């Protein structure tokens, strides 16, 4: 049997069908984010990469690192 691959219609949110589960995951990720460790930045970047254009994320990342190195 060939599995069907059906695309969501344009404009539909990737997360719209999973709001309750997504909010549960979001809440958990937020809890992970605030815990000490490298998770904070990774969670922030992950959220940005799934919800914003890649170039915007990269611009913010590079700008942050660049300004961090401003003498």
């Amino acid at each position, binding site marked *: 049997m060939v*599995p*069907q691959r059906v695309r969501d219609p344009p404009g539909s949110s990737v997360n719209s069908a*999973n709001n*309750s589960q997504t909010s549960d995951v979001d809440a958990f990720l937020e809890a992970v984010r605030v*815990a000490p460790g*490298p998770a904070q930045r*990774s969670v922030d970047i992950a959220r940005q990469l799934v919800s914003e254009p890649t170039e915007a994320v990269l*611009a913010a*990342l590079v700008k942050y690192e660049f300004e961090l190195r401003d003498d």
Partner: protein
Amino acid sequence: MRFEFASAPSPDGRSLPVLPEIPNGPIVWIEGRNGIGKSLSVRLLDLASGGAPYASDPEAWRSLRSGTGVITIRASNGEEIAFRLDPEGWVDEPTRQAWDRLGSATIGGEPATRNQIRERLRVVRIAGEEGLARAIGSQFADLATEVDKLADRLGPGAEAADTSLDALLRLLEHAASDRAESAAADLADAERALEGAVVALDPASHRLSVVDRAIHAADSLEALTSRGPELTAQIEAATQELHEAHRRREEAVAELAATAASRPGSGVTKELERIEKLVARREKAADRAALEVTQLAGAARVEPSDQHVEEARAQIVRDLEIETARRGELARVDAVRAFLTRLLRLLEEAEDLDARAIVLEVSGQPITREVLQDAAQARRSVLDQTDIAQEVDATDERLRELVEQREALEAVATALTKLAHTRDMVRGALAQLDLLESGLAGAKGRFRVAREQLDAAVQDAERLTLKKQEAERALAALAEGFTEQELRDLIAAVETPIAELVSARDNLRQQVSDLGRARDDALRVVDACRLAAAEAQEEQDQSRETLASEPEWAWFRSAVGVGDWSAGWTDRVRSAVTQAREAVNATSRNVKGIADALRDVSAHVSDARALLGETPISQAVIAACEERVRIEFMSEAIRTALFHGAAVESVDLRNPSVSWKEDGLRVTRPFSAFSSGEQAFAYIRARIEQVRKRADEHLLLVLDEFSAFIAGDRRRLLNRLLNERIQAGAISQVVLIVPLSQDYVAAAAQAGDDASPVLARRAADVDRVGYFAEQAPS
């Protein structure tokens, strides 16, 4: 919502039982035998609607995958949602199973996405047999699945970001000054090295050439002494032979001139042409004469040959004689008739002449009057009967025809004679032509011989000239253009004894060879460095231009602005981009790490598996999980049931336990200690209270294997809770699944006709499909 299930056997004949139906209703009670697929049906529904019921139970997943064929599920509530699950394409790891690859789904007959399904239907299953630890652990497994999905969604973006940053770093590397500067420095070094190699090589080469010349001079001097006289003799001999060859050449030239003089010149050629034209003309004339003969012979109706013409002429002559004689006879007929008439008159008038009287003698034969009269009379009768005029005309006509024919034959004969003459003329011209051509051939032959002699003489002269030149060159080579004194001077110039010259040269050759190789290597290095420097400069210019103007890098320009490409600025940018790339890659790793840590914690809490080595990420995950469980435990129902109302201070998942204060003292208990029915029930109630649907989804809450909670007050409390949640709009539908509480079939049989309708229906359903489903009382 009503649900229908059907399963087909796998290709090897295996299949798993499923419930044929879960009826519609706010709270549906399903009581059935073990092994009929109650829990399986719910798990399949959860799986099809986008859940992950096997996330923490990979063994059950693999057993399902290999134990059944296609499974179809229909969920209808006005709108029909249909699923077709085909284990053929499922992966081994349940958390890696993509929903798209489970099979297919439709809504109202149209293909549907996972999101579209999730918008309409969600299944929450709470298993009653789970203890506190397993219930908590399974939450983390569900979270791990959701984080995995986040990681999958993150993948393309992270990969694109990494690719973009990698490309940017390469551009920055090329745009940085250090590469071009380094390449320029390398080029300068290589050029200096080349200069050094050349400086070292030149004097050695010069010394070598001097020694070489000295050695050659010594060799030349020796050769000149030993071979010079021999070569001189060769030159003299060659000179004499050459002189002889020249003489023979002169003789051959003279002979050639003589034969050329007698060779037919242009006059003979012209004569040849004239005769050839004469032949052509005469042949044409012969052709015309032949044509005339043919035409005349045709007109004369005679073969065009002398013999036939002569025979025809003879015949005509004979015919002419005959016809002429005949004509003569015809011409005499009137005269004869007239004579005969006169004779007969005379005979008639001579009446007194006796009839038997002899009137004449013909050839001595006497002829009487009677006889003569009868004969004359007969003859005149004949003549009177003859149409003389017609016969004369005919004879004249034949005579004329014969004359014409004779004239035609005469013409043919004349034409034949002319043809013969013309052919004689052609033969004569051809004979002249042959004579002329044979004369020419003879002259050509003599000329050719003279020419060959000349060529041979010339070749001899050339060969001898070469031979003489070779000998002269050899003699000159011995001295290499030097005089004997000059050779002695060359030898003296090296200030080295002649006997040591060869070894000195060998050493110098080795030295020069080594230095030459070094120079060649240095030259190659210079070429390579020059090319590299040019490439580095071009790359630098192009890379800077690209970063400054290409739309693809507009985001980069917005982040760092336009720089001066100084070393400091470039280093700063490269470091920033490198670090940004590391942050992106760390994100992918850490998100996966979060999912892995969740699975690790789930297995540790649920099944007491040892935790894997901790990382900063796993520590953050454990901390978040602990806080999550602590907040969950802080619900009033759970605090009251489990902790006597106390506030939970902390949860420790490394040693699954919870801590609170009782009477001012800190109390810590492991999860396994909370095993009483009351405590488990309280936890379950809290979990039910946490379940909340979105406004437009059908949230199906399944309480599976809840027999422990249906006894006595618990059932009443549970019912009340469920109805409250439904009426509050938090839950759409509840399905309670419990094992058979009695042997309904036996009970119905025993009751016989007295069996209540409810018992009878239950017994019939259990007997038919192994379970019954009813609306639970509110």
